């Protein structure tokens, strides 16, 4: 494989930014954001350079590697810290650095009034570096380092305003729930090491077919657990809604466009594992299908604009996971939806941030309304993202989501019909809740009081939104045209036989569009044509109430894990205090007690000692007499 010594700069540039901003401290306050943005852009430039070099080579020779240093060398087990840039990673590199740079630019303005802006940019750069390491690592162990790095950056950024206890709790919640996923990844690495003797992607791929299916299934399920944690999939999705406590650019970059899609990357990267383990693959599909419905249902009930978008992210990643569980037929579409989603969802989050910026950080959509007149640019960019996510042709989401629905329908048998219907229904609900967000925010009647003075955001904020909006218009077409992305990624995946088509593509597209129209129409009837209450109505159906509570996921987690966990810990504390401490204290007390009893025999009177000696001697003599008699 070709060696390219330029790969390290992709990571080194943002890492340098993060370290220098953190180490220089307040001295860098004045120019730190500029340095961070420049370095992120520099990393993007390196990525583009790599892409141009890659395009010049034949498909087989496109992957390049760079060995940084020998990391672990024990006997026959060797792990190098090496980077691997292939057709899959370059997609991610460009998404991360491209969207990342735009969000850096946006944040310069968005965070301009925050006294800790430098620290914010340091964390953003740290995130970019860690995420690049995640997608560039050539083994599961290298990936794991990046995986933990993005978890750390996410934790730091969710709790960026940690002076508010609720935000600090949200960051802890995200971190702890992510740990469960991280445990899955570390188990997967351990199983791979124990049974295959290697943890590199190429090594595992070589042995994927010789190894027993049980091994591959175990690795696959553990990788799925990892993906479920990081990508906020069912049943570990509860952290994503609370993660919206972080500044909005963070929600856009980390919790919409890049980090939460790491799970999809992991599954697509491990395609050889899942192809060899059909059961694990089936589980992936089930998780994806459940989450896409779950997120969509939660999205319909949220009044907080960011939480509605977060639920939507969950649902869209559900689509990607679903696609990545469909085998070689779906991998390319999972990545395609991931890329288009990166554009439109990041754009919409930035739009939400722009709305909040103009509305004194109000997040409740019931207190918006009629903002179209006051924020025309935000309206247009958000609207383009909206059209993309609900899947209106020719916007980006149409191509990617349509392909996923089609692939799901063609998965064969009852599985295909169930998955296809879920995906179609999800499309309808997506259209409903996104239209709801759109109407409540921009087009319905004004519901804010006159102390608010909504205004358009400055150019540094709307420019990234505009670029992302352009991306959400054209990216789908560009990636779809002539199956560009599919052919680009093809060398990485195994060949798959032709599937029989359940329905012709045009019918599927028609069905999907029909579902979208239904969703939009329902939302228009409910929110545009009737009045919206400023306070969320209380006398609603039990389903709405459950959806408002995230479908009770927090309650389930608390009832199943948190409270029993607390019980176990408090029981353990009691055991520790009574048994363990009791034993230690008991030994001490015993020594003390016996000492105080024995002390009484030491009277200090010579004559009592003499009596004791006499008695002792008498006893001794008696004993000798008894024994020798």
């Amino acid at each position, binding site marked *: 494989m070709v060696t390219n010594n330029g790969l390290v700069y992709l990571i080194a540039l943002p890492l340098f930014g993060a370290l220098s901003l953190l180490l220089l401290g307040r001295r860098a306050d004045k120019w730190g954001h500029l340095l961070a943005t420049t370095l992120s852009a520099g990393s993007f430039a390196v990525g583009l350079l790599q892409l141009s070099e890659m395009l010049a080579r034949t498909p087989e020779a496109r992957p390049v590697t760079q060995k940084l240093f020998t990391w672990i060398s024990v006997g026959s087990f060797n792990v190098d810290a090496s980077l691997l840039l292939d057709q899959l990673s370059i997609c991610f590199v460009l998404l991360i650095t491209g969207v990342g740079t735009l969000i850096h630019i946006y944040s310069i303005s968005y965070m301009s009034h925050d006294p800790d802006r430098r620290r914010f940019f340091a964390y953003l750069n740290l995130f970019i570096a860690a995420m690049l390491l995640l997608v560039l690592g050539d083994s599961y162990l290298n990936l794991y380092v990046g995986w933990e790095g993005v978890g750390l950056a996410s934790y730091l950024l969710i709790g960026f305003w940690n002076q508010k206890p609720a935000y600090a709790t949200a960051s802890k919640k995200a971190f702890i729930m992510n740990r469960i996923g991280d445990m899955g990844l570390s188990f997967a690495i351990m199983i791979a090491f124990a049974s295959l003797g290697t943890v590199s992607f190429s090594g595992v791929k070589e042995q994927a077919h010789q190894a027993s299916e049980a091994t591959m299934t175990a690795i696959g399920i553990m990788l799925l657990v990892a993906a479920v944690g990081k990508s906020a999939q069912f049943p570990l999705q509860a952290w994503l809604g609370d993660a919206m406590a972080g500044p909005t650019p963070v929600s856009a970059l980390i919790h919409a466009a890049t980090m939460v899609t790491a799970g999809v990357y992991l599954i697509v990267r491990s395609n050889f594992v899942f192809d060899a383990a059909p059961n694990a693959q089936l589980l992936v599909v089930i998780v994806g299908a459940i989450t896409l419905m779950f997120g969509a249902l939660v999205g319909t009930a949220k009044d907080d604009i960011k939480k509605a978008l977060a639920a939507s992210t969950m649902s869209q990643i559900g689509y990607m996971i679903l696609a990545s569980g469909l085998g070689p037929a779906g991998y390319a579409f999972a990545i395609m939806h991931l890329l288009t989603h990166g554009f439109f969802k990041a754009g919409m989050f930035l739009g939400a941030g722009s709305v909040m910026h103009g509305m004194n950080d109000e997040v409740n959509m019931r207190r918006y309304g009629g903002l179209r007149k006051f924020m025309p640019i935000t309206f247009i960019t958000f609207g383009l993202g909206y059209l993309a996510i609900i899947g209106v042709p020719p916007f980006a989401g149409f191509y990617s989501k349509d392909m996923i629905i089609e692939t799901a329908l063609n998965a064969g048998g009852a599985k295909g019909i169930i998955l296809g219907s879920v995906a179609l229904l999800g499309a309808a609900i997506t259209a409903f809740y996104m239209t709801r967000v759109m109407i409540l925010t921009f087009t319905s009647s004004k519901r804010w009081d006159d102390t608010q003075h909504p205004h358009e955001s400055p150019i540094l904020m709307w420019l990234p939104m505009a670029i992302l909006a352009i991306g959400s218009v054209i990216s789908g077409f560009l990636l779809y045209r002539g199956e560009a992305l599919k052919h680009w990624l093809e060398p990485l995946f195994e060949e798959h036989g032709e599937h029989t088509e359940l329905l012709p593509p045009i019918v599927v597209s028609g069905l999907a569009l029909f579902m979208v129209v239904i969703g939009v129409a329902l939302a228009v009837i409910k929110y545009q044509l009737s009045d919206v209450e400023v306070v969320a109505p209380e006398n609603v159906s039990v389903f709405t109430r459950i959806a408002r509570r995230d479908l009770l996921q927090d309650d389930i987690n608390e009832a199943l894990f948190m409270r029993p966990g607390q019980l176990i810990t408090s029981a353990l504390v009691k055991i520790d205090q009574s048994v363990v401490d009791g034993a230690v204290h008991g030994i001490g007390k015993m020594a003390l007690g016996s000492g105080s009893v024995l002390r009484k025999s*030491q*009277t*200090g*009177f*010579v*004559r009592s000692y*003499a*009596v004791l000696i*006499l008695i002792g001697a008498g006893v001794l003599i008696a004993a000798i007499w008894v024994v020798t008699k």
Partner: protein
Amino acid sequence: MSLDNYLYLSAILFTIGAVGVVVRRNAIVVFMCVELMLNAANLTLVTFSRINGTLDGQVIAFFTMVVAACEVVVGLAIIVTIYRSRRSTSIDDASLLKR
């Protein structure tokens, strides 16, 4: 005369000595009682030496006398010192070590 009588005498002397050590308070008297017990033991040794027809017991009796002499020197010195500092020869007064 049976040699047993020496043993009876020795036992009586030892008992008197032991009772004296336990009962009396005056350090000088206690000291004399200790000597009495030592000499009772000497008498026993010598008697058994006589009964068994060997010299071991008599040799050990000499050793005991030497040790007793040393003990007297050290013991009297201690008693005198205690008397000087405390103006008392009662051994119950010299019970400070228990604290």
